[in-house]
């Protein structure tokens, strides 16, 4: 890349920083050209992404050439191996990115982003999350909160149930619901090639809250065995939530494995309710909107974070979000990544809903579109221990084995030991560099 274009890129960023919501006639600062982005966003998420990109294109003149695929691992690895990478990639998990970074296939961002600016606007956890072996490779532009229990406030009120504040409260509540003849939970695990992931969310949330961030970090890094007492304990704790043979879950184990995760919340809204609680990330509201009749946020559903399992790790939350990575160093991809880190960009995202929470601290809580998303953003702000989704951090084959283990576990909890032993076997090979 020529020096001239670097200067142009730098100029564009200055202008970007200055003009918040651009008047688009600063022809002198326009980089022009095209940035080719590979991502997984389709449907409404793609529309949101387009909306976020519009001011960027207006200000820099950089055209967006976006391509979406659900097989991101396959397409990205093939294109990089063939020497035809996209400029920027937005990946839902970073297992593959870690492999690519270690193989020297990705440029670092340390010298390409304004790190001091980033330090000022981002929490340290979010910057560290982007680091692989100490170097900055990925950037997060939004988060979604996991470990949320969705419930129908009317149903809770009718039975006099209280929102559980502690793990013991939750256990007491589930027993009470059962004693009243109801089903405490809906759990739906079917998700085609990714079946099992909703259950893996339960386990990772429990690991973080029960055993803390050190165990959690060692675990996703492959240094903590699945058969270790901490990880096993998390599974058995989840087993207590499910009840023996899934007896705490509406429809039991057959329902769990056969029901598409997006439909799992329907049981909350029937009369009488088929279940009272449903654990899912903040994005699930986009599925609620598709139910007939459509439930209303606030009156038909509300949310509380999964209570802390251990008070030692109070305020620990699992978050997720797409990781943006530069797969080809061009002035346009630098400009784009810088833009994505700005409050302006993230503001557009959160305003459009879909359960996205801004990471840039300059984004005001008042910009969230409704009470629920605002309260979730508040949870993120208050979070003391934030950890990224462990499954999305693991190598992709480890993650798939993890999902598969969930399916085996819910069908027969007594096989836990052999399930975990199998996961250890995968762990032994999955972390080897290619």
């Amino acid at each position: 890349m020529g020096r001239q274009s670097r200067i142009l890129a730098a100029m564009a960023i200055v202008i970007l920083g200055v003009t918040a919501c651009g008047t688009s006639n600063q022809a002198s600062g326009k980089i022009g050209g095209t940035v080719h982005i590979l991502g997984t966003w389709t449907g409404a998420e793609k529309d949101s992404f387009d909306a976020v990109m519009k001011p960027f294109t207006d200000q820099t003149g950089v055209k967006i050439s976006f391509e979406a695929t659900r097989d991101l691992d396959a397409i990205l690895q093939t294109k990089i191996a063939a020497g035809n990478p996209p400029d920027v990639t937005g990946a839902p998990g970073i297992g593959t990115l870690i492999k690519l970074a270690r193989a020297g296939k990705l440029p670092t961002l340390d010298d390409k982003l304004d790190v001091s600016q980033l330090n000022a606007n981002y929490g340290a956890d979010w910057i560290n999350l982007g680091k692989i072996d100490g170097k900055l490779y990925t950037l997060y532009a939004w988060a979604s909160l996991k470990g949320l229990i969705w419930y129908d406030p009317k149903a809770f009120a009718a039975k006099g149930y209280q929102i559980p504040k502690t793990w013991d409260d939750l256990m007491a509540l589930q027993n009470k619901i059962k004693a009243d003849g109801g089903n405490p939970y809906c759990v739906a695990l079917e998700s085609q090639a990714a079946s099992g992931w909703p259950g893996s969310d339960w386990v990772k949330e429990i690991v973080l809250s029960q055993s803390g961030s050190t165990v959690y970090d060692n675990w996703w890094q492959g240094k903590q065995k699945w058969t270790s007492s901490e990880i096993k304990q998390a599974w058995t704790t989840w087993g207590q939530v499910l009840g023996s043979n899934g007896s705490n879950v509406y429809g039991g184990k057959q329902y769990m494995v056969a029901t598409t995760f997006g439909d799992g919340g329907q049981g909350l809204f029937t009369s009488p309710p088929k279940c009272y609680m449903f654990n899912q990330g903040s994005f699930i509201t986009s599925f609620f909107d598709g139910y007939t009749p459509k439930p209303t946020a606030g009156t038909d559903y509300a949310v509380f974070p999964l209570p802390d399992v251990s008070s030692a790790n109070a305020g620990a939350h699992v978050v997720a979000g797409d990781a943006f990575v530069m797969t080809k160093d061009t002035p346009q991809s630098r400009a784009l990544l810088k833009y994505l880190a700005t409050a302006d960009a993230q503001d557009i995202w959160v305003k459009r809903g879909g359960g996205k929470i801004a990471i840039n601290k300059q984004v005001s809580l008042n910009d969230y579109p409704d009470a629920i998303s605002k309260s979730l953003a508040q949870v993120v702000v208050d979070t003391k221990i934030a950890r990224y989704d462990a499954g999305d951090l693991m190598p992709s084959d480890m993650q798939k084995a993890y999902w598969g283990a969930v399916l085996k576990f819910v069908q027969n909890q007594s096989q836990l030991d052999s399930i975990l032993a199998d996961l250890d076997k995968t762990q032994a090979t999955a972390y080897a560099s290619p």
Partner: protein
Amino acid sequence: MDGSLGLIARMPVLQVDWGTLVSVNLPTLLFVVVGVPLALVGYIVGADVLVRQLPKRSQPSVRPWVWVGPAIIFVGVILVYPMVGTIVRSLFDRHGSTFVGLGNFTRLLTDGGILIVLRNNLLWLILYPGLVLLFGLLLAVLADRVRYEKTVKTLIFMPLAISFVAMAIIWQFVYYYKDPSEPQTGIVNAVLVNIFHGQPITWIQDTRFNNFALILIGVWGATGFAMVILSAALKGIPAELLEAARVDGANEITIFRRVILPLMMPTIVVVGTTMVIFALKAFDVVYVMTAGNYNTDILARRMYDELYSAGNNANASTLAVILLLAVVPVLIFNLRQFRAVEERR
């Protein structure tokens, strides 16, 4: 843009370049549609003219290569060249640095989980080609005798035309499981519950049924394929032959066994071979429906995982070579078959 459809334009940055589409792609397409056949005809006519310049004696040994040449070049580059790399990689460790001989093969074939995979592949290998041929032949032969043949063939063909993107949702309407307390939304369970008063079954997850349920998805999709080809072969059987047999007083079943079946046999072998190979390569159905969970994994899906999830090229290549080797017996059968055809003529 897209004013003709009266639709809302999206963000201006994402507008499609209609200029290029119409000014470049459309002429190119026309050029290709007219030009490619012309070029190919020109090639074969021109090459034959050149061959005729050769001494008469060497013509028969040169001419065939003119005809198979383009195919061999394409296949050589697109399929053989990558396969050579694959075979080499199957003999090295995952870093591609250490030669391990057949080490990958022995390791993969003795892996604990492989038995179920092989069992499933065997199930696919037997049931999928068998049922596709059975239904394909039945439909081709029976539909040939009814007046509404075109309608039947179109309806059987339709599954082929449904993109695999929609596969998961179609089969949700057939196999979906709902708790017995709710109305079933999948037709199989609805019939089971409402007509036979049974309990609904998780067809895709229940290890007693799921492999069969998945194979049925494949059979449903491929039968139209078999039917069309077999029907083309059936139509190639001269009507006089059938008429003569009928005049001789043979009943329809005898005619089918003595006249139709032998004449169609080469085509049945082609369809059967193709289906056997497709069964070995079966990937889409399992990938989409179960991702190999619930004891439904098969070799080709495992290969995909090794390639893209584990990034283990050696294992992926080894599995591909195993698939290629598994085809050899079928090829030998084919060799005998077309030698027999040639002897007959």
